[in-house]
């Protein structure tokens, strides 16, 4: 396997982008990434697009072709990757594998979701299809409800408090306030979270990541080419993916995601990195409880201690491990297929010392953790400068 590096990155503005459709969003992020890399568009040999459900959200499938077309890159091969909320991270991994294998030397990965063209009930059903439609959604389970049941069980088993979950959202809004691409750049308080409307008890509106339009893109290059393109390549040192049962109820535990544990272990092994070396991480906080589960399952904190660690401030900017410096899914926004790519963009910014007011000091290694569904897919990347 050859070494592969991120040599350019770009984002669209995240938010309710009523003026922009899929085509505008992928173009905005891709042009930014290509310009950032300095490569000529015609040098790019293949395209990977992560999108969860463009068909249900925007009545458009065949995104591989759409992206090649809109970027003026036909006839190069272009493929769309789907793994629910992990579509972006898995698209990054597929591009990584294509370059590492020697098949290609330069690839563009774009993640995108256009979510605000449907009503909230339709969006809720569509997001639910990341779980088991027949045996979860059909019976009335929503995505917030699945994570709410994990939260309820975590509270029951470990004494985790709603206030501690609220502190995840408060921290991520604080980080998001330093990110001009974030959907929400306002600070919030624990009381604001606790007093927001209940979506699925115990999760309130401000425990939940929002509905977002947005796209993120990266340019990946094989080692020899990467060194020619830039003197600041960000290496993909580890890339691992794992699967689990589609339905939450089929798992032994509601308080731990096995796919996250397996992917993290394998990615760290490949990168030859100890978790204690990782000072910056983008984790999948689709709900506040999900960040607490991720902190524990990735191995940053002992099982059951995640809530306490948030309360102690151990995941704030420049603390033990700076988690979700971008604002995370909660504040930066969660255009589902874009999220996994955006996490890599954020780490590349951090590792290149280009993150401005939210820059973590002295970082050499970063971790990105992207989850599909209630944990049926997890993908972990380790990046190193």
């Amino acid at each position, binding site marked *: 396997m050859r070494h592969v590096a991120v040599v350019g990155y770009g984002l669209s503005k995240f938010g309710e982008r009523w003026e922009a459709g899929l085509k505008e969003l992928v173009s905005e992020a891709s042009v930014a990434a290509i310009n950032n890399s300095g490569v000529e568009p015609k040098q790019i040999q293949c395209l990977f697009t992560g999108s969860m459900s463009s068909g249900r959200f925007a009545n458009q499938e065949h995104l591989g072709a759409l992206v090649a077309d809109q970027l003026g890159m036909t006839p190069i091969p272009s493929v769309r990757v789907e793994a629910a909320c992990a579509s972006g991270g898995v698209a990054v991994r597929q591009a990584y594998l294509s370059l590492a294998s020697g098949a290609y030397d330069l690839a563009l990965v774009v993640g995108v979701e256009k979510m605000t063209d449907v009503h909230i*009930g339709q969006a809720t059903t569509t997001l639910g299809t990341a779980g088991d439609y027949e*045996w979860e959604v*059909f*019976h*009335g389970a929503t995505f*917030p*409800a699945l994570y709410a049941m994990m939260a309820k069980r975590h509270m029951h088993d470990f004494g985790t408090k709603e206030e501690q979950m609220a502190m995840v959202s408060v921290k991520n809004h604080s980080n998001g306030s330093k990110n001009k691409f974030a959907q929400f750049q306002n600070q919030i308080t624990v009381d604001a979270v606790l007093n927001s409307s209940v*979506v699925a008890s115990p999760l309130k509106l401000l425990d939940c990541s929002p509905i977002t339009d947005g796209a993120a893109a990266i340019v990946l290059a094989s080692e020899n080419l990467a060194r020619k393109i830039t003197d600041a390549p960000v290496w993909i040192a580890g890339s691992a993916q794992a699967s689990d049962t589609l339905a939450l109820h089929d798992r032994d535990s*509601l308080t731990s995601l096995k796919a996250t544990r397996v992917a993290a272990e394998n990615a760290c092994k490949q990168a030859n990195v100890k978790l204690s070396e990782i000072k910056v991480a983008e984790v999948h906080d689709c709900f506040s409880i999900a960040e607490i589960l991720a902190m524990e399952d990735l191995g940053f904190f002992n099982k059951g201690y995640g809530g306490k660690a948030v309360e102690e401030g151990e995941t704030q900017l420049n603390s033990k491990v700076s988690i979700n410096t971008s604002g995370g899914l909660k504040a930066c926004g969660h255009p589902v297929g874009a999220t996994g790519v955006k996490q890599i963009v954020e780490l590349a910014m951090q590792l290149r010392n280009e993150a401005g007011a939210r820059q973590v000091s002295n970082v050499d290694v970063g971790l990105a953790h992207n989850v599909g569904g209630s944990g049926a897919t997890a993908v972990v990347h380790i990046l190193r400068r």
Partner: protein
Amino acid sequence: MENITPFTWRRLKNRYNLVGKKCTNCSSVFFSPRMICSYCNPPMETTDFKFSGNGEVVSYSLVNVPPEEHSALAPYVIAIIKLKEGAKLTAQIVDCNEKDVRIGMPVEAIFRKITEDSTGLISYGFKFRPLLNGKN
């Protein structure tokens, strides 16, 4: 989302009578039904297995923002239930308030309307309620 008739029809046995599957080799039971045992290596086939309908609550949540096809009945309590025979499933808890539900509470399956779509197609199936005498 409107579900065409065969989607509901082909699962009637499972939804009406809580029929899942049992491995022909290791006797593990599954609900929802699986064609292939998750535990046996090499993979083994499964046969129909009827669950008693008794179980207990593993976790639960009051859903205020439902999928579109459940909007008429919201808010409702959704739960993960561990059946007495071993498998777990997701279903609504009815005939009680959220504050009466607790982790570990014994429940029993009952037959109820699950959804009615805009074409008038009604889907029936299982929900659960607190076990009346409190014991399985």
